[in-house]
């Protein structure tokens, strides 16, 4: 057993872990936070992404023992008691999740990006998130949500005022039996 003293989502934590236990299993089984998910156990899906000492890592590829003296942020640590993280709010409003299993990993990865590059463009966002797999959404709404969160964050920091975050309500009447509605290439194109 390895003695680990660490900080998780701002709270000090101290525990013993078997040396072989991954940081993912440490967080899930020992600490009891199950937001980080197991998807592949070989660093190829990003569902277990957490921030360790300021960098995003696949927690399945880190030993729990290595967290000793470190600082960990998981999806559970993104919101404050008063408000969701802008990314969380944007993911909800933009319907950027379907089954939701990859969502914690995406949120943690994107939060790290926004912190260091608050105005990352679409291409940079796609590059940064390439280590996170999503099989439900096709990524389109995820990328849109991250861009929206960037805007929300910059407005927040500008005004310091509370942004009223209401869902966009687009009620579309269908007077005929048949109607057509398009959602297109708003925002920056990739190429």
């Amino acid at each position, binding site marked *: 057993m390895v003695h680990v003293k660490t900080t998780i989502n701002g709270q000090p934590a101290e525990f013993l872990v078997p040396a072989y236990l991954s940081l993912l299993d440490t967080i899930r089984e020992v600490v009891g936070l199950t937001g980080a*998910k197991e998807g592949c156990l*070989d660093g190829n899906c990003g569902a277990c992404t957490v921030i360790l000492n300021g960098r995003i890592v696949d927690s399945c590829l880190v030993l729990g023992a290595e967290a000793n003296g470190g600082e960990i942020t998981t999806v559970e640590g993104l919101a404050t008691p008063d408000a969701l993280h802008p990314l969380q709010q944007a993911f909800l409003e933009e319907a950027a*999740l*379907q089954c939701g299993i990859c969502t914690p990993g995406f949120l943690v990865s994107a939060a790290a990006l926004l912190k260091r590059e608050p105005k990352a463009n679409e291409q940079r966002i796609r590059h940064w998130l390439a280590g996170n797999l999503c099989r439900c959404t096709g990524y389109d709404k995820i990328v849109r949500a991250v861009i929206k969160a960037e805007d929300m964050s910059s407005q927040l920091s500008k005004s310091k005022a509370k942004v009223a975050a209401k869902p966009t309500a687009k009620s579309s*009447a269908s007077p005929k039996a048949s109607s057509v509605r398009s959602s297109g290439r708003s925002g920056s194109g990739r190429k």
Partner: protein
Amino acid sequence: MVATFEPKKTYKVIGTRPIRHDGYDKVTGRALYGADLKLPGQVWGAVLRSPYAHANITRMDTSEAEKYPGVLAVVTAKDMPKAESKMVDLGEGTVNEKHEVDRIMASDKIVFRGQPVAAVAAVDRNTAEEAVKLIRVEYQPLQPVLTVEEAMAKGAPIILPDLVGDDLGEKVKKTNMAKHFRHEFGDVEKGFSQAKHIVERTFKMSMTHQGYIEPHNAVAMWDEDNRLRIWTGTQGAFAVRKQMAGILKLDESRVKVTPMEIGGGFGGKIPVYLEPIAALLSKKCRRPVKLVMERKAVFESTGPAPGGTLRVKVGVDASGKITAAASDMKLEAGGFPGSAVGAAAMCIYSPYNIPNTTIDGWDIVVNKPKSAPYRAPGAPQAHFAMESVIDELCEKGGWDPIDFRLKNSAKEGTRRGDGVKFGSIGNVDVLKAASRSPHWKSVLNKDTTDGKKRGRGIASGYWFNIGLKSAVTLSANNDGTVSLVEGSTDIGGSRASIAMQAAEVLGIPALDVRPTVADTEGVAYNDVTGGSRTTYATGFAAYEAAIKMVEELKARAARIWNQDPSDILFKDGVFSAKKDSELRLNFKELSKKLGETGGPVTVTGSVDLSTGGGAYGAHIVDVEVDTETGKVEILRYTIVQDVGKAIHPSYVEGQMQGGVVQGIGWALNEEYFMTKEGTMANSSFLDYRMPTTLDLPKIETVIVEVFNPGHPFGVRGVGEVPIAPPIAAIGNALHDALGVRLVETPFKPGRIMEALEAQSKAAAVKPKR
């Protein structure tokens, strides 16, 4: 079910985009998925799987594992109830009972690599995983049979000795062919004789996996009354109950299944895999046992989409009318019978009106994992073949691909490939919308400055969408909100789309209907979340329940106001008395007064529906190919799809985009790359190359709404149609870019380079004129 509802001109809730009810739990990490469950006293299991694809088990010794410190139970097929070789219905069509039990845990013979042979429960996961390695199994390896051609060849090793095949209604023994069926309408010989252009091509496809990010999981616990409880990520708690009862020979009422949040399914989480094993282990050690499947096992031993060989021949007359079509589809069932070839046959000609058709379908057993439904099962395969041939015919005849499809489009009354007439369908509307889309109208510059080639492709796709059984309970709360209890696992926002349909009827905001997905004892029977049925059928049940609730509330208002119930009106969310205009209460106000009117208000809606209104999509894609490496980039992609009515448009778009991206993966890189020993060589997310966010552009969506008369709001199934056209659309775009016709999936770079090389060789040997 007859809809007693006129399509409304405007809706208050339907068509809006509220935040989904389960959203907060899912963005904060609170939502509990199967692997997140931790019961008091819970222990872990691990499964030993066969390293061979085809073998006899000759000996098994579990003694070392049983002695390993921390081990609580070891099970093998001997612990399973004895299964007979007879057909039973476990909710997903009929299956051979012995096959189903052997699929869970092999008793005597291995028919696919990764098939479970034993399992261990231990104090923790690592101990279980270490202990399972100590089980000694001796195998007599047999020659694996890996393609439909090998399986059907004379003298091929027989995979299932007890299989009785059905060859056009005749019984066949000692065969790998589980089924051969035929649909035949009109006179194809005559049809082809009328054709000016005939194209015939054979296509090959590899197995592909649904690729859900959450691995399979299960927790099982037996109690002292011999009742079994299961917690699992599944597409259908009742389907799990039925399978468990059948496999373990229990009364269904002894099994209670709690569906946890589910991390993707796409059809792959309908069959049970770990649940019976967890149950056996729990029975033996009398502790709750949890199993989580490792990713490699998810690829090797769960149910991919079938690969196979498809031949399509289509004839067109000089005017551009299709005169005949004939097709053979041989799909890989995997180690046990049951590929999606029947569904493929229903889809293959569905975009078209063809007077003379034949379809021959074969379900072939091979030494690969038993295939399972994968999003519109069979449709991507069928449409890849058909739409590629249609593209070639358009080129031959010089027809615009949309004009050609419009000219030959299926309409209400047209016959499907299996002879059934279509009801109200929207293929024409979809094609017209596609032709008006900004994408189709844009000009693609086909050559680039860096020598890359670009092309545009289009393809149609169809899925019939299923209906089946759903039930919903609504209870009015005295604060004006309504609790909704349903049994459809929410994989992609269906709590919202179901609640919204109730809210629309009740005249209250979407978020005032609070949906809960219940366990098998908390709600009446519900079929699986699958077949694109959930928003359609469970939404219909919610609508029915809401109608009943309005009736009940009218009665309560009548009681409060001393009016006759038939004199109470409900319009725009307000209850009023016909005979006294002063008497008006909206839903919320009335809810607060229910205390003295005769107990809580609770109602149920229950439906058993026919097809969910078949639906069409037309997809347009631009690709760019690096002709030096064969690498393909998707430059632009537009989905046009008839959804009947978009209840929550964001999640409708999400289904369309997600389905397409799975289709893009299928087209470009995803495959079961099998070694000659029958091992999937690329059984990881590293080498099973699903698209990452960097591999895609934004995916444009055009929602077409052609009212489905079978649903009060006109809903059609949405989730499956979008995976039907992409492979063909991309293949057609590659043909446009390169001039080569790709007939085997995936269109991986090496394969594209080989096609280009063959093209240049062919050009070189052509005599110059």
